[in-house]
């Protein structure tokens, strides 16, 4: 088993636990924005897609990479956009009166 795999596994397990604890604390009010936000964060795969595309190794890898860049970047842009829109709608009763 490669050494990289072991250190990656450490990172994965720790991040999974942190994620679990953080998500449990998210208010159920915000479960829909939570889903769109984590989706936008997950769109970080765009960095891998950019590298595959920009290395320009074969026509196939560039094409697949470009599809991946477009798909994940649309998630990034759209995900943050709609999350912010949804969260701005949540107003407390007090804030509304003032």
């Amino acid at each position, binding site marked *: 088993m*490669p050494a*990289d795999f072991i250190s*990656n596994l450490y*990172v*994965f397990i720790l*991040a*999974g636990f*942190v994620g*679990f604890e953080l*998500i449990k*604390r998210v*208010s*159920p*009010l*915000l*479960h*829909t*924005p*939570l*889903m*769109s936000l*984590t*989706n*936008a*964060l*997950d*769109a*970080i*795969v765009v*960095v*891998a*897609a*950019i*590298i*595959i*595309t*920009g290395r*320009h190794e074969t026509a196939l890898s560039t094409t*697949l*990479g470009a*599809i*991946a860049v*477009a*798909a*994940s*970047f*649309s*998630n*990034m*842009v*759209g995900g943050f956009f*709609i*999350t912010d*829109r949804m969260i701005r*709608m*949540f*107003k*407390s*009763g007090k*804030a509304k009166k003032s």
Partner: protein
Amino acid sequence: MNAAAIQQYLDFAYIIAVVLFMLALKWLSSPVSARRGVLAGEIAAGLAVVATLNNPELVAYKWIVIALIIGAGIGIPLGMVKITAVPQRTALSHAFGALSAAMIGIAEYYVGLSHLSRFEMGEIGMEVIIGSLTFTGSLIAAGKLQELLPQRPIVYKGQNIVSLSVLGASVVLAVALVVHPEHTALFPIMVIVALVFGVMLVTPIGGADMPTVISLLNSYAGFSAALLGFVLNSKVLIVAGALDGSSGFVLSVIMCRAMNRSFSNVLFGAFGTVQTSVKQSTARPVRSASAEEAAEILDAARKVIIVPGYGMAVAQAQHKLRELHDILTKRGVEVSFAIHPVAGRMPGHMNVLLAEADVPYDRLVEMDDINPEFPRTDVALVIGANDVVNPAARFEKNSPIAGMPILNVFEAQTVMVIKRSMNPGFAGIDNDLYYLDKTLMLFGDAKSFVSGIVKELNAVAAGS
């Protein structure tokens, strides 16, 4: 600066991004700090993208730029969809995320063909299978939510065996590729079989089970990104994927509990087996009332709880409900909304719709917090919800929904139910709530009925 030094700067940028990701989720714990959370996420994403564009490995930018422009061109409209379309938009974004992860995995396979170790082949195989099945599964889910495909479950005999065999086939192909990497022709077959499995996974699932499925697909999309991080040895992908995956996982567990389903029941896609037992009930007498009578009762109440369900979303009644909330509050009635975790088509669906209609979020109360309030409630107004208020879940051991946590609407002094007809809900079972002596059925379209009540109340307010 040499390439190694640049690489260190890039790694540093990714570490900052990872910290900001975690802060983003932490700040989502309350609506007060949530916007800061979105901002943290945006900074993290921007930082990571800009850093990556400076990677010395990049030799050609043309296609990157074109793809980024196309991505923004798709993403901006998808960020501006109506709030009512958020469930299908979310399913679609799971599809895009999974597509992206699968494409990169496939590209890595063909680029690295000559020097892939067996271990790396195994990682790529797993990653591409999960990415592919999540892609097609999410597309089917989005199609059902957009009502391009029938919302009802499509089932046939022996479905689970057939579906699991297809999944098994793609895993066998992946294993074959690990053992005999020279048979490269197996790889595209593996991808196609995984894509087919994704379709088979979601087709049998009915509309009301969507909150669980959409959470599960969210989890798969996250884990496929994390697996991609293993393939590419990229810690930022592993962290982001693990956060997204565990988020989807936590939400699936919450949804499962709210429907009293076991987690394995969900994992093996055995949804929708419940609603086959439609019971033909003989017509029992119910009491019905007009908008005028309903308005009088509400006006006389001190404490009212409104219970919204998917029917509210379908009828677009949320804005009228906010008017009802406003006028009753003005007349000294205490009004709150009871939110069942699986009401609607995705986790938190009701909250977002009501928040968009300007209902203050402190009026939206979770099931566990509001249930003790029902005995002290004068009127519970059920609008477009059915199974989540069915007392059979608590009192009938043989009911298909037995054990499912419900909102204890039946404990209120008076229950009013706005409903089109006496047709049973998703689970196909009769609801005893409708036949109680204290229950008044308000037959009609949710939106027009609520606006009728509001009109009556306005008339009373003007007269007094």
